[in-house]
């Protein structure tokens, strides 16, 4: 039998439309946000190669110097110095390490744990599902900042304290979203067929369900990055984040808070870095969500 010419045409048209849609999506990619993020990611990976000074080194004689382009500025310090004469540019560059690194680690842990729990709850159903969802509701209702403060006092502040506290709450968002997806996936024919063919629950999850929820998990993760970075910065600002002398953007903003009148650059430079990163992540996340998974648009 020869192939039906009409079918061939409609297929190629579909392909053309798809290619056109893909092109349109790619063209709408927020390039500026991507560039900003790349710069900060590079800062986070090789801060020492980029910093003009040691971010921890005091220069007490150079306390609170304004940025070099302002009157009274020093050529050696492009963005000025803080109270102890430490270079603000170098500290901002090193600060990217905490914000982005901690965000990455936290999101990874929360995504893995939350996805696993969400899949088990959705697949098992019944009382397992009911209990898990009540626990999820509970975790989503407790004020995270306050619990993180309690942790930092009782356990002691540090990188891993912050990671653990935030992921302790963040997994719940993944579990809820993934569980919802799984509920609809489980109803599909290919899952029923796999069950009939004798697939174990583990095989069902890893082969048939996981690939189908990955899109949601990726989109959700990009939307959570901004949240985690803001929470970390807020904790550092309140003195419950990664402790000094390690430079954090939140901590730097707190240091400069008392000197707004005399040395506004102390707070605003790290604050702007923070705002730029979060803004870029949000723009990129919105774009990725619209491109990959329009059903998440309400999030």
């Amino acid at each position, binding site marked *: 039998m020869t192939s039906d010419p009409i079918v061939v045409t409609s297929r190629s048209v579909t392909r053309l439309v798809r290619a056109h849609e893909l092109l349109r999506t790619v063209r709408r990619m927020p390039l500026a946000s991507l560039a900003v993020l790349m710069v900060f990611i590079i800062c986070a990976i090789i801060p020492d190669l980029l910093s003009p000074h040691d971010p921890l080194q005091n220069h007490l004689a150079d306390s609170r110097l304004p940025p070099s382009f302002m009157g009274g500025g020093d050529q050696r310090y492009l963005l000025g110095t803080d109270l102890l004469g430490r270079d603000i540019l170098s500290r901002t560059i090193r600060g990217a390490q905490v914000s982005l690194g901690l965000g990455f680690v936290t999101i990874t842990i929360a995504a893995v744990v939350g996805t696993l729990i969400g899949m088990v709850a959705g697949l098992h159903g019944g009382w397992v599902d009911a209990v898990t969802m009540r626990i999820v509701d509970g975790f989503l209702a407790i004020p995270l900042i306050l619990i993180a403060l309690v942790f930092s006092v*009782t356990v002691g502040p540090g990188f891993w304290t912050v990671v653990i506290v935030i992921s302790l709450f963040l997994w719940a968002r993944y579990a809820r979203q993934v569980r919802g997806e799984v509920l609809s996936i489980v109803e599909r024919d290919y899952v029923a067929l796999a069950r009939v063919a004798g697939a174990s629950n583990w095989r069902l999850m890893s082969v048939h369900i996981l690939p189908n929820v990955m899109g949601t998990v990726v989109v959700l993760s990009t939307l959570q990055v901004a949240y985690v970075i803001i929470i970390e910065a807020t904790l550092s600002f309140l003195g419950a984040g990664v402790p000094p002398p390690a430079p954090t953007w939140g901590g730097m903003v707190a240091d400069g808070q008392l000197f707004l009148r005399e040395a506004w650059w102390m707070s605003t430079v790290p604050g702007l870095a*923070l705002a730029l990163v979060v803004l870029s992540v949000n723009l990129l996340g919105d774009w990725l969500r619209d491109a990959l998974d329009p059903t998440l648009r309400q999030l």
Partner: protein
Amino acid sequence: MIRFITRRVIEGCIALLGVALVVFVLARTGGSPVDVMLPIEATAEQRAQATARLGLDKPLYEQFGIYLLNVAQGDFGTSIRTRLPAIDLVTSRLANSLLLALAALTIAVAIGVPLGVIAAMRRNGPWDRFASLFALLGLSLPNFFSGILAIWIFAVILGVLPAQGAASWQHYVLPAATMGWFTSAGVTRLVRSGMLEVLGAEYIKLARAEGLPERSVVMRHAFRNAVLPVVTFVGMSYGLLIGAAVATEVVFGFPGLARLAYEAVQWRDFPVLQAVVLVWATIIIGVNFAVDLLYGVLDPRVRLS
């Protein structure tokens, strides 16, 4: 209806019990408040005396039981730092916090709703672009940083508004605007997407085909249906705002609940921390309940069961 209310009240009490237990255990797992109260050179005997006086030497479950009994009688314990009844400290700050959250929500709704409606009606126009930029900035600037920027601009440079405290209504403007901006971002986005969805519906086409004035189509037919998710969001935000206010209250030196909790954590002042969190959780649960009831009034399709 009565069954619905009864069930929700019982569920609320169970949730409160859970919150009380979590905070109780968390607070006790860390160091003892005796370490903060007594000077470093205190003898072991003095420490033991202080521990016994505070009842910290009893087993944990007994301490929790005693605590629950006392709370049921309205006794939330005595602040370890100030020696005042914990509940008095909470009530003295409560009104400030409730007022601040209310002001922030008013700002969020007053800006977010009109902006969202205009953005949806003039899709991709300049107002739409402004609305999405406004929302994006609101979501991206952490509260503590936008708060500091607000102090820098309005209190330090322009000198038009006070930056610290809660002595007059002017003191509420900056912190409320800071918190309101973040919330209005969510309101703007929800109203916009809700309006866009509703404006494409059949009954809107019918209303237009009947020749109703556009103003009436938008306000009477579209807006009423688009506003439902916003009610839920605003209700949830009220509870969240009191919680998210920690950084804002610290920045503005605002005498509210969140800062009381922040100080209580640093002083390991368990009774105050527990009282704050319990009062807080009660408010959140109560507001969510009220929102659900309101939902039934606003949308006749929702049956409360």
